[in-house]
C-alpha cells in the first residue's frame, strides 16, 4: 500500500470536510479552520490512515483560539462513533415542549472553551454538553441527531489522510471555489470524459483557460499508465495550471504524454514551423516567472517571458517550451481523436483554429457556464456542416439522505452544472 512521502499532495479529511494540501517539508502545517496540524508524523505512514489531533498549544486569535496540534496515528478502536460512546436512548416523542429561548444550554461558552482546553476528547465534551442541556432529552430522536452532529462537527478530533484522486479533487475544488475550475461540476466532468472518449488509445486535444489542472488531470487519469495515448493540452497563459496533475503523482512516462503548450505559441509553430526556428532561438532569454498555480494572464506571452524549467540546459539546445511546441505540432499534423474545450474566451475563433486538427468521425465537447454562448456556437457549427449530432445539455443532480424513516433528498443542491455542447466531426 502506498505510503505518504515528502513532496506528495495529500487529502486531509475531517469528517465530511476534505482539503488538498502539499506535504512539502517536515515543517509543513495544514490549517483546518482554527486548527493547525503539524504534518511531520505522516511521513512513511500508509495512506488512508487516521490520526488523532493532539493539542500542543493554543493562542488567542482574531476569531477565537487558534490551536496547534501534532498528529498521532491511531487505532481502529479509537474510531467508534461518538453516538456509540454517548449511547443516547431516551428520546421525546416530539418537540412540543421545547421553547427556544437560548437558555437551554446551562454551560456558558467560556465554560465550554475551558473544558475544551482541559480535555481534548470530543466525546467527553459532547457528553458534558448533553448533560447540561435542559432540552436534549426532551427532543425527538431526529432533533437529537441534528444536535449531536452539529456538536460532533465542531469538536471532532480525528483526521484521515488520503491519496488524491480525481474524484476527491473535483469535490474539494468545487466546494472551495467553483470558479477556479470554471464551474465544472462532478457530473459535467464525468460526462466530458465520456463524450470525448478519452481512454488508453488515441491522441487528444484539450484547450482550457484555467481549471487548476483538473481537466488535464482527469484526461490523463483516463488515458492511464503504460498506454500509448497522448494529450496536447493548450492553454492561454505563460505556464499551465498543473496542481491537480501534480497531485495525482503519475508515473513519469504518463506525465510526459501530456504536452502542455501555449495556444498562440504552438499555433505559430504549427502554421509556420521551420521558418520560425532561427528567429525564435535568438530571441530567447532566461527571465522566468513562477506562477504555475496562479491564473496567468491570457495574452500571448512573448518568448522571453517563458518559464525555463531547466535553465541549466539553456546553453545546450532549444528551450523546453520549444521542444514541447515541436512535439505538439507533430501530433497536430497527425490530427486528434477528440477535442475538449473549456474557454474563458469566446470559443468561436479558438474552435475555428482547432476544429481542422480533429479527424473525421470524432467527438468534440465544448464546456461553458454561459448557455447563450453555446446556443450561438451551436448555430455557428451547424452552419459550417463540419459537425453533426450536435447536442446542448445540462444536468440536474441531487443527493439523498437515506436513513430509516428519514429518507429525503438533501435540502441543499448545487444549482449550476454548466452546459456541454457535443457533436461529431465530419469529413
Amino acid at each position: 500500500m502506498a505510503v505518504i512521502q515528502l513532496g506528495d499532495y495529500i487529502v486531509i479529511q475531517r469528517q465530511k470536510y476534505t482539503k488538498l494540501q502539499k506535504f512539502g517539508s517536515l515543517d509543513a502545517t495544514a490549517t483546518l479552520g482554527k486548527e493547525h496540524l503539524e504534518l511531520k508524523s505522516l511521513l512513511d505512514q500508509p495512506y488512508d490512515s487516521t490520526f488523532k489531533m493532539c493539542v500542543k498549544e493554543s493562542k488567542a486569535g482574531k476569531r477565537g483560539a487558534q490551536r496547534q496540534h501534532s498528529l498521532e496515528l491511531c487505532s481502529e478502536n479509537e474510531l467508534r462513533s461518538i453516538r456509540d460512546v454517548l449511547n443516547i436512548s431516551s428520546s421525546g416523542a416530539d418537540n412540543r415542549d421545547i421553547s427556544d429561548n437560548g437558555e437551554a444550554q446551562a454551560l456558558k461558552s467560556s465554560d465550554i472553551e475551558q473544558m475544551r482546553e482541559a480535555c481534548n476528547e470530543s466525546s467527553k465534551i459532547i457528553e458534558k454538553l448533553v448533560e447540561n442541556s435542559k432540552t436534549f432529552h426532551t427532543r425527538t430522536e431526529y432533533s437529537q441527531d441534528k444536535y449531536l452532529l452539529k456538536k460532533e462537527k465542531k469538536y471532532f478530533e480525528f483526521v484521515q489522510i488520503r491519496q488524491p484522486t480525481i474524484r476527491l479533487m473535483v469535490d474539494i475544488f468545487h466546494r472551495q471555489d467553483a470558479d477556479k475550475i470554471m464551474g465544472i461540476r462532478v457530473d459535467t466532468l464525468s460526462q466530458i470524459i465520456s463524450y470525448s472518449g478519452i481512454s488508453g488509445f488515441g491522441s487528444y486535444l484539450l484547450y482550457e483557460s484555467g481549471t487548476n489542472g483538473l481537466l488535464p488531470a482527469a484526461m490523463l487519469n483516463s488515458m492511464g499508465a503504460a498506454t500509448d495515448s497522448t494529450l496536447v493540452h493548450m492553454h492561454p497563459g505563460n505556464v499551465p495550471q498543473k496542481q491537480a496533475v501534480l497531485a495525482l503523482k503519475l508515473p513519469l512516462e504518463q506525465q510526459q504524454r501530456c504536452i502542455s503548450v501555449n495556444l498562440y505559441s504552438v499555433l505559430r509553430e504549427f502554421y509556420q514551423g521551420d521558418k520560425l526556428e532561427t528567429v525564435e532561438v535568438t530571441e530567447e532569454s532566461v527571465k522566468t516567472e513562477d506562477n504555475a498555480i496562479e491564473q496567468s494572464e491570457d495574452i500571448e506571452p512573448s518568448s522571453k517571458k517563458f518559464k525555463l524549467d531547466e535553465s541549466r540546459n539553456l546553453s545546450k539546445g532549444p528551450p523546453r517550451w520549444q521542444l514541447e511546441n515541436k512535439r505538439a505540432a507533430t501530433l497536430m499534423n497527425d490530427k486528434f481523436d477528440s477535442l475538449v474545450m473549456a474557454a474563458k474566451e469566446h470559443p468561436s475563433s479558438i474552435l475555428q483554429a482547432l476544429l481542422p486538427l480533429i479527424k473525421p468521425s470524432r467527438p468534440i465537447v465544448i464546456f461553458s457556464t454561459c448557455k447563450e454562448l453555446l446556443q450561438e456556437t451551436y448555430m455557428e457549427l451547424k452552419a459550417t456542416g463540419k459537425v453533426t449530432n450536435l447536442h446542448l445539455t445540462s444536468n440536474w443532480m441531487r443527493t439523498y439522505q437515506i436513513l430509516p424513516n428519514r429518507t429525503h433528498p438533501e435540502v441543499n443542491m448545487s444549482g449550476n452544472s454548466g452546459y456541454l455542447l457535443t457533436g461529431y466531426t465530419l469529413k
Partner: protein
Amino acid sequence: MSFLKPKTHIEQGDIVILYLSVNSMHAIEAVPTIVNKKGETIAHIFQTPYGSLKVQSIIGVEYGSRVELSKGWAYVLQPNPELWTQTLPHRTQIIYTPDISMILHQLEVRPGAVVVESGTGSGSLSHYFLRALKPTGHLHTFDFHEARADQARDEFKRHGLGDFVTVYHRDVCNLGFTSELDGVADAVFLDLPAPDLAVPHAFKALKLSGGRFCSFSPCIEQSQRCINGLIKLGFTEICSMEVLQQESVIKTRSLPVIDLEFLKMPKSSEANSIDDSKAKEPKELKKYLTSSCPQVLPGHTGFLTFATLPPNIPKA
C-alpha cells in the same frame, strides 16, 4: 391591519415592509412609540445597516414610497403573504411560496372556502389561506404548541384577519379537529410528523359532498404511510409531487474575442512590433446577457401529497 386589502397609505398600527435590498427586508409595526425592556415608553426607532428610521415618520406615507434613513434610504411596501413569508419571525420551519402556491391550487381554495390546517406553525401558510378564502370563507388552524397558537391568534388579529380565522391549541393526531368541524371543510392541510394519524380526522372534517386533501412531509416514509391511510378511507386522485423553484441570477458577461489568424503570418521584426502593440491593446469583447442559478439551491422542501375525497362516502 395592512393584510386585509390593498391600501394606499400607511396608517398607525400597520405592519410595513421596509425594503432595503433583495436580501434585506424587515417587517415593522408602524407605531410611533414602543415599550422597552424596562417598561418605559420610548420613540420607536428601527436600526438598519443604512442607519436608523424614526418609525413615526412613515405614518401617513404612501406605500411604495422611498423613505430616508440616517445613512441611506429604503422603500416602504404594503405587506402581503409573499413578503410576510420572507420577513416573519420564524417560530418553526416554514413552507415557501412555490409549495404554498401549489397547495392553494390543488386544494382549490377560493373566496368562501372552509379550510382546516394543522399545524399553524409560524402562520406563513395561514396568511396565504386567509388571502385566498376571505371575505366569505373561514380558516380553522390547529397547533399543539400553546405559545405558538396564542402568538398566531394575536398576529392574525393585529393583521386585520381575525374575523376569518379560528386558532386552536390542540393535539389533532390524538384528539382530532373537534366534532364541531365534522363535515364542514372544503379542504384539509396537514403538516405533521405523523400525518397518517390525522388522516382519519381529515376524512371526518371534509364535507359529505367531498373535498381536497394535502399533506406536506419532508420524508418519503411519512408520505408512504399517509398514502396508505388515504387509500384505506377511499380517497382518490392520490398524487405526490415536489416543486422546486429556481432563481435566475441575471448578469452581463463579457468574453474576450481572441485573434488567432495573425499567427499564420510570418513574424518579421517589423510585424513583430505591431503584434506586440496589438497584444497590449484591449481586446474585442463580446457581451452576453445571461443568467445562472445561485451556487446553492434548495434541493428539497417537502413532498406534497394531494388527494380527493369523492362525494357521498359514508363517514360512519
